């Protein structure tokens, strides 16, 4: 599955990339929501590239934050198949509700273990149950 890892920290993108890569997912990285939308526009909306099946999305990023990205993706019918998982330090209940109401499917709070990410992916049916160590 093609997966977008969207985070302004290169270190966090690497951590997430390692987790999903071990599941056999292919990864495209973006440093913020705008970069991710630019990729989707060029490769999917205006091109014939594969629609990512999953995006792991940070919240606090420059240019376009994660919530704005989620909202933009949900406004585009051609991207309806993307599963969106917020991976963020934002842990206020109101923020979680806001993200889910905007179209995020799952929410993981940093710091996380690899198993926490994999368990959420299993809940979404993207990996088989019991994959986590």
């Amino acid at each position: 599955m093609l997966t977008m890892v969207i985070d302004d920290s290169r270190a966090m993108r690497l951590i997430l990339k390692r987790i999903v890569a071990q599941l056999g997912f292919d990864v495209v990285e973006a440093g913020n929501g705008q970069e991710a939308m630019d990729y989707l526009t060029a490769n999917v909306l205006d091109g014939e590239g594969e629609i990512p099946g999953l995006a792991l999305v940070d919240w606090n990023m420059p240019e376009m934050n994660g919530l704005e990205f989620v909202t933009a993706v949900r406004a585009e019918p051609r991207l309806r198949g993307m599963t969106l998982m917020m991976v963020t330090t934002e842990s206020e209940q109101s923020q979680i509700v806001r993200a889910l109401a905007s179209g995020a499917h799952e929410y993981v709070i940093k710091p996380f273990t690899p198993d926490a990410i994999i368990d959420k992916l299993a809940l979404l049916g993207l990996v088989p149950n019991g994959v986590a160590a």
Partner: protein
Amino acid sequence: MTTNPTEDDLKVIAEQVWSSYLDLDGSSPLVPVPAEKHQADVTASVSVTGAWRGHVLVSCSDAASKNVAAALLGIEFDDVAEEDVADALGELANIIGGNVKSLLPEPSALSLPHVHVEGTQGRYPHVTEVCHLDGTWMDESVTVTVLESTTDLAGASA
């Protein structure tokens, strides 16, 4: 009721962060130490605005900052560049700051991280220290500090 975070809160947060990213096998945790060992060559900070206003700082020795970057980016210590330190230490401050924010009155917002190599003297005016955690990691100094703003939104001292 929300109260200000304490040193014990910072210990819990640091333990979670270290076990998730910097001490995966449990062999090199952040060890709390007396404040006199404090050394701050590099500082990463995030600001909290809203119902509570202030800053969360992660300060450490130059070697510790390179150890953080090497661990998070999976590179050798000697290959760590300045931008690697900025990225890795900034993310560390973002995660710790976000978890500190969860202990503070809502609603509030977290800034993007800022990393600087000079001392912190004068960089955070009109603040009072809420709590701090001094520690060593791999024999190098790491300190987490929470500063609360003492000015109101108009800039007058509270």
